[in-house]
């Protein structure tokens, strides 16, 4: 047994209102630089829908992830090493900019400078790539809220797997949002595809990063990731991806997307897993067994043996205790309400989802029944095969049983807690019916519905000890991988050549300092920008607004 720790995330889809706040704050923090205009480390897609980039889930086309060979080994779906190297001069499976979308801005200047005329001047959309006027035809969430209707939704690769007849009915019945970031997989195919060895998984916390110094721009990782969560920065010629906001995680702060999530639906915490078992689990024969196999790789942090083994690997005490308090472990392993996204890609994703009960609830309510009565909900779960099959295609490789079980638990919690809230006699048979005790039901309710900040985010301050040293060293993590913040400008060898301006990691004191000083971006100093990376959600981030002028002549 080789115990490793991983920072993982769970999202409770019932609570996502599709507001895209997470996407916007993430973009503001990480991808507001030239070359990453089209990049959304965090995106929110409406399901059913095509996703971003379009139809990325169609692995017969994009060939991301792993496949199992007849001999039971894993091979990159895009081809073995030799094949990868031979296609290095032009990657045949790279999504084009049109598959993401062509980013644009508006010609605002025209609003002010257009000559006087009869018509109102308009701000024409202009491509951020070529600078030419363009017709806006697609974007990262063009089919938001089922916009475009059945014509667009039918191209959803997941929907295609659910039978034809089912489709029409399905679109009438439900829709939900799926926020996505990099999965920080246990068996990352992006890392495996990188010819330069520039991508790596951090052995302490499992965060998958791109070493910007070592990336040579071969673009194989973009193909390799089945979730299409590695992006090519077309100005610097290097790959970039979601960093799980490692500078924040390292000091115990949640990621920007979690921090700013309006629905407070994101959970962050540690899980311990057995690294020796990962490959074996990822290679199980039947895709439908992958969910269970992945569960089996995760270790119980309360097990003495596991704790001992973790100590032997040098995992710090506060990390072990964080793993024991981890909301992720509880949601995934104890309550079993969180499911992995597309386990059939065999990358062992580590951002899990609690599937939405809302379609079921809506259906019951719309038909005029009591949507908080366990019996009604259970009946609807049995009847609504279509949404459940769809969810199963997303989360369990098509096996409806686990999805069923999760929805039943959520339904049970709903009606059990109603009795509690109304001060009625509770009905222990409800939790018992889904294999839970009253106690665990309360605890799950507290975690899912009340969702206090400190319950949602249990991030070890294991760097605490290192933290003290970090303070003195001011910024020690400068050269770790991940997209740093370069000064936007051109070196002699093209965009962003030269030396990186380091990502400075803020210690708690530095953070406080930041929050209370009043420097940072005003219009006079455009190169600096609002740094949401350091924002803990309190007060206003420095530099978001121009500075107040003391003598009031502004």
């Amino acid at each position: 047994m080789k115990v490793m720790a991983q920072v993982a995330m769970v999202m409770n889809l019932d609570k996502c209102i599709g507001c895209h706040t997470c996407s916007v704050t993430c973009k503001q923090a990480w991808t507001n630089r030239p070359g990453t205009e089209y990049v959304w480390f965090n995106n929110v897609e409406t399901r059913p829908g095509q996703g971003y980039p379009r139809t990325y889930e169609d692995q017969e086309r994009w060939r991301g992830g792993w496949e199992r060979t007849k001999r039971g080994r894993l091979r990159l779906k895009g081809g073995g090493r030799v094949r990868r190297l031979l296609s290095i001069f032009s990657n045949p499976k790279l999504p084009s900019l049109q598959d993401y979308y062509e980013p644009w801005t508006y010609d605002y200047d025209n609003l002010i400078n257009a000559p006087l005329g009869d018509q109102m001047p308009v701000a024409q959309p202009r491509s951020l790539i070529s600078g030419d006027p363009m017709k806006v035809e697609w974007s990262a969430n063009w089919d938001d809220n089922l916009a475009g209707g059945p014509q667009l939704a039918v191209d959803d690769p997941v929907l295609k797997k659910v039978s034809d007849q089912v489709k029409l009915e399905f679109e009438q019945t439900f829709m939900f949002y799926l926020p996505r970031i990099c999965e920080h997989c246990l068996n990352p195919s992006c890392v495996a595809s990188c010819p330069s060895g520039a991508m790596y998984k951090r052995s302490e916390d499992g965060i998958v990063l791109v070493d910007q110094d070592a990336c040579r721009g071969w673009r194989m990782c973009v193909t390799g990731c089945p979730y299409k969560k590695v992006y090519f920065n077309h100005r610097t010629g290097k790959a970039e991806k979601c960093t799980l906001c490692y500078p924040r995680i390292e000091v115990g702060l949640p990621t920007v997307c979690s921090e700013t999530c309006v629905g407070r639906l994101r959970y962050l915490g540690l899980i311990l897993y057995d690294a020796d078992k990962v490959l074996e689990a990822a290679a199980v024969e039947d895709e439908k067994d992958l969910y269970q196999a992945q569960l089996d790789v995760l270790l119980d942090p309360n097990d003495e043996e596991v704790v001992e083994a973790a100590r032997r690997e040098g995992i710090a005490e506060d990390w072990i205790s964080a793993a024991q308090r981890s909301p992720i472990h509880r949601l995934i392993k104890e309550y079993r309400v969180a499911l992995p996204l597309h386990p059939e890609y065999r990358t062992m994703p580590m951002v899990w989802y609690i599937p939405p009960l809302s379609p079921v609830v809506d259906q019951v309510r719309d038909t005029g029944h009591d949507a908080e009565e366990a019996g009604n909900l259970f009946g609807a779960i049995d009847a609504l095969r279509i949404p459940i099959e769809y969810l199963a295609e997303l989360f369990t490789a098509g096996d409806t049983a686990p999805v069923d079980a999760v929805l039943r638990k959520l339904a049970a919690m709903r009606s059990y807690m109603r009795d509690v809230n109304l001060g009625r006699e509770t009905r222990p048979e409800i939790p018992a019916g889904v294999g839970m005790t009253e106690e665990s039901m309360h605890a799950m309710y507290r975690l899912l519905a009340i969702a206090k900040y400190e319950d949602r985010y249990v991030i070890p301050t294991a760097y605490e000890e290192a933290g003290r040293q970090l303070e003195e060293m001011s910024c020690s993590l400068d050269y770790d991988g991940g997209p740093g913040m370069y000064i936007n400008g051109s070196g002699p060898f093209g965009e962003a050549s030269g030396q990186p301006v380091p990502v400075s990691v803020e210690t708690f004191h530095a953070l406080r300092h930041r929050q209370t000083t009043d420097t940072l971006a005003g219009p006079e100093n455009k190169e600096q920008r609002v740094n949401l990376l350091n924002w803990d959600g309190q007060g206003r981030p420095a530099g978001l607004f121009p500075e107040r002028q003391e003598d009031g002549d502004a």
Partner: protein
Amino acid sequence: MNTLLWAAVPYVAIAILVVGTFWRYRYDKLGWTTRSSQLYESRLLRIGSPLFHFGILVVIIGHIIGLVIPESWTDAMGVSHDAYHIQALVLGAIAGFSTLAGVAILIYRRRTNGPVFMATTRNDKAMYVALVAAIITGLATTLIGAGIVADEHNYRETVSIWFRSLFTLNPDIDAMAEAPLSFQIHTLFGLLLIATIPFTRLVHMFSAPIGYLFRPYIVYRSRDARPDRPIYRNRDGVRTRQRAGRR
């Protein structure tokens, strides 16, 4: 003049290559990339890029064979003069023309595709001039060497000897001076290209990822893998850098 061209210039070029590459690696790892423009346009790139790259790989191998292996060796192996020249001509011409065609497609693409053109730096343009000049003069010498265009010339008795003599630090200037003008021009363009490699996007040739074939699929790296980082100790005094595990 001959001494300058055939003794000084080559060493200067090599020195620039070595020092320049080292300097670039040291100070510009961030700019060390292929700077792929596939995201903007991939239809033409799909044809042009492999054509060019595979072509130039064969060309490089051809140069090594032609320049490094002495004529006496192939003679000893029983390869006749004519046989050698025919294979050199055929292979060289095929590889040369595909390289040229490839680079032509790529340049056409660069010029006509808006976003790709916008991503082209002045540095790139200069590099393309040097590259195309070297390819065209090279193709010319291939044809000349075989006696198709002008008098046949056996470069293995001139250029190759000079080339090998460079490495013994005793350049045979006369051998090179005897070579026809076309060969001399090609050699100079070649040297120019070599000297500019470190400063253009061509550096990406030095990062041909052969290691990929041999490394484990999943790379693990410790957060504090940098040697100049302090080693952290946890409460039990366990050095945390030991956590850096590799599967």
